């Protein structure tokens, strides 16, 4: 006999939700693979295999059912987000290490899906960028001349076929270039942005990837899988800091558009700040959470030591979530402050 109070349910499962999130990542992945080469796909594969393996191993240690937990696909989502945040031509051990950290220390030690206070992918990313800043900064050159086989060889063995140029596979990210350029002085932001690396809108190749993330995010919103509040609030936060700075001293500070299209801004807006588990859940809380992630991200980018800052901004705000949720509890039906007609 059924014990349940409610006898019918919407035919939705966590697995389907996660599957849709993965689907929403596909356009971005396609553009990434086109811009930075098929190395991206190898990174995704490595991350997926590591994530599933690590999850299964920990679940077995915890004596919990393995198959349902793997089938919910949450580990794959974490793996993909992480792989897409890492350098496309990073060495294989980097993505494996990052994924292990994300799944084991970011998720399973807290009790698995639904219990982690921090965004697991961002935990993995933060660990890597703190431990291996140089390797993490070596981004792939957009529209590289290197063929697929050479890329894969580079990722796996860290060697290149004879005659290949290292510059063809590795270059600093625009965020990095701008940061070091401004630190060295002599050049204004405007002059720096004239370099070919910045392309037309401040991130050669990368802007298309960023727009593809935005597309995926919009689709998720249309599917009612993510709320509109968090991403919009985050973009508002980005704008709130970068715009005044840029208007004040355009020579020293990059434009809001630059911040929008560079680094993981749009990936974060669509897929990272919208992680329900570690984010805020109240309507007002989502606005506050998203906005402050945006603010922190630009502040750390502009004034901090690291070129990109999505991971730190998200992790810091994850810590504040219980407090935000506690203080932004919505009004309950009929309670005071109610809408008495």
């Amino acid at each position, binding site marked *: 006999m059924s*014990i*349940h109070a409610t006898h019918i349910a919407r035919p939705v499962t966590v697995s389907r939700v996660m599957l849709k999130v993965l689907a929403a990542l596909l356009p971005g992945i396609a553009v990434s693979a086109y811009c930075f080469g098929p190395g991206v796909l190898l990174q995704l594969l490595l991350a997926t295999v590591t994530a599933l393996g690590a999850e299964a191993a920990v679940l*077995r240690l915890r*004596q*919990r*059912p*393995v198959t349902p937990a793997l089938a919910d696909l949450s580990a794959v989502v974490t793996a993909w987000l992480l792989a897409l945040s890492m350098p496309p031509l990073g060495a294989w051990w980097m993505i494996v290490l990052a994924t292990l950290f994300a799944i084991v220390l970011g998720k399973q030690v807290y009790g698995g899906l639904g219990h982690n206070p921090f965004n697991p992918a961002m935990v993995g990313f933060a660990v890597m960028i703190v431990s291996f800043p140089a390797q993490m900064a070596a981004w792939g050159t957009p529209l590289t001349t290197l063929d697929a086989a050479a890329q894969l060889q580079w990722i796996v063995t860290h060697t290149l076929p004879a005659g290949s140029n290292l510059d063809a596979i590795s270059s600093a990210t625009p965020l990095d270039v701008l940061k070091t350029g401004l630190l060295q002085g002599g050049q204004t932001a405007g002059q720096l942005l004239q370099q070919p690396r910045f392309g037309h809108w401040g991130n050669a190749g990368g802007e298309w990837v960023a727009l593809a993330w935005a597309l995926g995010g919009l689709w998720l919103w249309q599917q009612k899988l993510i709320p509109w509040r968090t991403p919009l609030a985050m973009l508002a936060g980005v704008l709130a800091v970068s715009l005044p700075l840029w208007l004040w001293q355009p020579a020293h500070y990059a434009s809001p558009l630059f911040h929008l299209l560079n680094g993981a801004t749009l990936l974060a807006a669509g897929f990272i700040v919208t992680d329900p588990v570690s984010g805020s859940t109240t309507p007002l809380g989502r606005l506050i959470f998203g906005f402050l992630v945006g603010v922190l991200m630009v502040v750390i980018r502009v004034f901090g030591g690291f070129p990109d800052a999505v991971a730190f901004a998200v992790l810091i705000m994850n810590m504040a979530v219980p407090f935000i949720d506690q203080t932004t509890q919505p009004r309950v039906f009929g309670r005071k402050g109610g809408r008495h007609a």
Partner: protein
Amino acid sequence: MTTLLYALLVMVALALLLGAILGYASVRFKVDADPLVDKIDDILPQTQCGQCGHPGCRPYAEAIASGDEDINKCPPGGEDGIRKLAELLGVDFKPFDAGAAQPKPKAVALIDEATCIGCTLCIQACPVDAILGSAKQMHTIIASECTGCELCLPPCPVDCIRMIPHGTDLTNWKWRYPTIPIKAVKP
């Protein structure tokens, strides 16, 4: 030298200011805490059965508060009671001692009225005055007042008191904890 002086002055001023704020706050936001004994007594089930070795719940609460007694001596309170005491006192949960009395289902005493000789011994033993009767008259138990302490059982010279476990009816039926099927992992 001046710098050092300034630093000293600033530190002293800060100390005074913060001290004043803290002092004010401690007066302004003073919390009148319940005495610990009352809080412990509040958790105890008030069965007054004496299974803890104390003559009633309050003496036991006092003994716990003074640190003379363990928190796992109250079977009517159940493990839930121990857990609450542990939480209140900030100590670890402690199961009931193996040899000691264990919790049992709640029950009320019932006097077999045909056997009762009206000796009033049980009336004297009842800690909550839940037994009615007088000498040479049949006694009866007010079920709603009975705590199920069983203190009336030993004095009865004709063994006419039984403990009847509480039944479930529509007024005290409970929804169960939703069961979650967990498949065991094969080793």
